[in-house]
């Protein structure tokens, strides 16, 4: 049954792409800290920025902020702006105090922000200096999550890219699979079981649960992207000899099978074995997804740019739930990493990269989609105009990858429509 239900209209290898610039209604890369700190359990993220940065993290982290989170902001004040030397001393003081207070921390990320980038505070030198001071107990790294350089999930890319040079070298050419991109632990465990059944291994994850134990990398490393927003990380992995296994992303029954299959084929797993391992999961996933199909089939959907997950999600919704795609916006479109996804998109979909939010809202209103995927700043205003919306940040925080999350993923999109039919208001 596996791929038989694919619509014949698929094939979006060279779709038109509307490139826009103007106001971006998106988060900056600092937001990635909110899920990365949960994932890497011995790391601390120290943003060097302004009160705005602290306020953003507070707004994005919601109640998490009260649970002794492993992130904080070193707020630059007017005294720091007076002279750069002073700023470095201040940073050292703040970091020293922090490490004394949190002896459980093994890795500290100094995270650059717009203000720290604009005043050209050299955080990579600061990281080297502090690494020397706190070695061997704490490693200090840096990356930028600033809005002038990164959009939302690109913060994870920047963070993982900072980890790549720290990964130990794999001696020889031993073959291993590296799954790249933060996944929920439950999803990681499912993937591990599938890979084991397929005879693919050893399997390692980046990021791992501990920053202190990074996976080894070498010319035998094959890597598989679990997330679509990891351009810089991929580039650095390749500079260390790793090779990408091209695959669509593991969203939905089809995406997950194709993703697992790509790895299995690279390992030379026999076709019969691949079918055997993927079929059960795929049947289960399709059954779970089909429960939502009645509500979503034939409905049109419009994506505002947010996380770079938009194209894989649109592919899933179009092929497995029969939704009609209008515009699919993405903050950034990596041509090579998205090639397998684009090939599966139906003809006639409008892709857009970047944003001019007011013009895009005009297009959205003209398209009158049945469901609009957008950020929290736009969702209620669009609902008030009569549009059903699905707020997009949930798609980053919820486990959605793999067979056993496919039904939940479909549910995230059917629920807003279901709700509208229930309310008699």
């Amino acid at each position, binding site marked *: 049954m596996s791929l038989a239900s694919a619509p014949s209209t698929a094939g979006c290898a060279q779709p038109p792409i509307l490139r826009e610039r103007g*106001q971006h209604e998106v988060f900056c890369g600092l937001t990635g800290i909110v899920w990365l700190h949960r994932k890497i359990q011995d790391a601390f993220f120290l943003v060097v920025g302004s009160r*705005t940065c602290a*306020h953003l993290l507070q707004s994005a982290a919601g109640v998490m902020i009260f649970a002794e989170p492993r992130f904080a902001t070193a707020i630059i004040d007017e005294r720091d702006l007076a002279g750069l030397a002073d700023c470095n001393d201040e940073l050292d003081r*703040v970091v020293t105090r922090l490490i004394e207070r949190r002896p459980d921390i093994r890795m500290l990320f100094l995270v650059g922000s717009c203000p720290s980038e604009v005043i050209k505070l050299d955080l990579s030198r600061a990281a080297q200096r502090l690494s020397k001071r706190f070695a061997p107990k704490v490693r200090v790294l840096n990356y930028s999550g600033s809005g002038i350089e990164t959009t939302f999930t690109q913060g994870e890319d920047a963070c993982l890219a900072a980890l790549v040079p720290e990964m130990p070298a794999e001696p020889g050419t031993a073959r291993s699979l590296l799954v790249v991109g933060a996944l929920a632990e439950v999803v990681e465990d499912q993937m591990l079981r599938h890979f084991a059944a397929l005879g693919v291994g050893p399997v390692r994850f980046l990021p791992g649960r501990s920053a202190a134990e990074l996976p080894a990398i070498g010319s035998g490393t094959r890597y598989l992207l679990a997330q679509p927003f990891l351009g810089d990380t991929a580039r650095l992995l390749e500079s260390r000899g790793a090779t990408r296994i091209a695959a669509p992303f593991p969203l939905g029954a089809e995406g997950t099978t194709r993703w697992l299959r790509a790895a299995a084929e690279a390992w030379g797993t026999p076709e019969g074995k691949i079918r055997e391992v993927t079929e059960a999961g795929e049947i289960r996933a399709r059954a779970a997804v089909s429960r939502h199909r009645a509500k979503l089939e034939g409905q049109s959907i419009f994506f505002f740019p947010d996380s770079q997950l938009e194209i894989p999600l649109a592919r899933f919704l179009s092929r497995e739930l029969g939704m009609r795609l209008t515009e699919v916006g993405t903050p950034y479109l990596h041509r090579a990493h998205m090639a397998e996804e684009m090939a599966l998109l139906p003809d006639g979909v409008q892709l857009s990269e970047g944003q001019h939010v007011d013009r895009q809202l005009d297009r959205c209103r003209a398209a009158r989609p049945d469901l609009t995927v957008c950020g929290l700043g736009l969702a209620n205003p669009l609902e008030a105009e009569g549009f059903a919306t699905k707020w997009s940040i949930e798609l980053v925080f919820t486990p959605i990858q793999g067979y056993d999350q496919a039904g939940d993923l479909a549910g995230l999109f059917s629920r807003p429509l279901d709700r509208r039919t229930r309310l008699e208001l």
Partner: protein
Amino acid sequence: MQLAVWTYEGPPHVGAMRVATAMRGVHYVLHAPQGDTYADLLFTMIERRAARPPVTYTTFQARDLGGDTAELFKAAVLDAHERFRPQAMLVGASCTAELIQDDPGGLARTLGLPIPVVPLELPSYQRKENWGASETFYQLVRAMAGPHAPPPGTKRDPRPTDRAPRCNLLGATALGFRHRDDVAEITRLLGAMGIEVSVCAPLGATPADLARLGEADFNVVLYPEIAGQAASWLKRSFGQPSTTVVPIGVAATRRFVAEVAQLAGLATTPDEAALRLPWYSKSVDSTYLTGKRVFVFGDATHAIAAAHAAQHELGFEVVGLGSYSREFGREIREAAKSYGVEPLITDDYLDVEQAIAALQPELVLGTQMERHIAKKLGIPCAVISAPVHVQDFPARHSPQMGFEGANVLFDTWVHPLMMGLEEHLLAMFREDFEFHDGAKPSHLGGGAQLAPEMGIGAAPAAQPLPAPAAVTPHAAAGDSIAWGPDAEQELKKIPFFVRGKARRNTERFAAERGIATITLETLYDAKAHYAR
């Protein structure tokens, strides 16, 4: 540099957004990098606004920093004017744009727009949200009402006797704690006195409304943090007096009514038919509230008002008072002195947590942050001030001000406490099977035997209160105090909701006296020592 996880206030441009979003016909163009739009969701999600805030962000990126950010800004201003056709615009810079020094005011001037454009100078590295709101409102009022001001020294004409007295309501903004309902409540109160509200601003006002602020006889300053500066300019420019009492609590509302009556030249006594706080507070069930130790923290206006009502209208004892509003340090210090407590003026929540842990109050009145501190320490808490989360922008009418506001305060503050009858019954039947340590609250389905099936850990009530080991002074010293079996047994007879306090007090008592093992004697010695 200041190490911060939580901030009580956002940056000053968020204050400016609160003013712009409160008004109609105003558009704010903010020179800001990608990502600063996060602030939109405070309005659309926390306050549940149905429209986007009237703010355009220039969204400059790293590649723009070479030189065309000024052009980007001008294009954004023109675009926003064309699209939104506001009556007036605000232009300014967020923290990052402040560093690149593009001068939004100067750039906007060169565009020669046919509407007033008010430039905002909001120093992000020195000031915060409330200051930003205050400054923005002041600049808007000056720009709009300024041209209508009489020459300096002009004496104000007395109100014609055939016209009702008129006032302006100043200070309510978007994202203000209960501002919506306070405005409704005070408007009603004034209406009952025969006073008309001329303009309410910024909430609901247009720039044209601001232009006629000078027409009112006087100003009502609802929130001094935001409206104080504008009101004193209106006094200087139009000779309008303004109110000094914030009507939160019964006595404050009565004083406010008297002050307003005097400013309006009326002899009015307020209609208190719907005021229930005084009787509720006098009723016997409230006897148990007597002397409950309360810690108060919030913005200066709400903290000072809450402390007064808590001590004098509910009969609590204020054991701590503080604020994150540094601009109002003097007022906080004065108020703290009147309760004989140390004022706590800080924007570091760890200081607040330490103060609460050390004082061990029975009730905390504070912000969203204190709600979480109190939860961690197992202390009841009610919210009295911003910052607040979505549940404190309720659908129902819930003012803090006026007589209905007083009713709301009573319910809100007493609810987290054990009511008198309940407290009495629990003490009386503490050995009863229904009230034993393992019993679950009845709303969770009754019997403790259900707990494992429901996946809830057994005996939630018996969980020791989370020990604030890191913050209590004696624990920090690292010495361990043992409990003798008899004392441990006796401790279990103390109702669970005060047991944590009893345990901590006894341990502190023992530590101070160098007692290594707590006996029955120690327990009761400590009880006598701490008895009020």
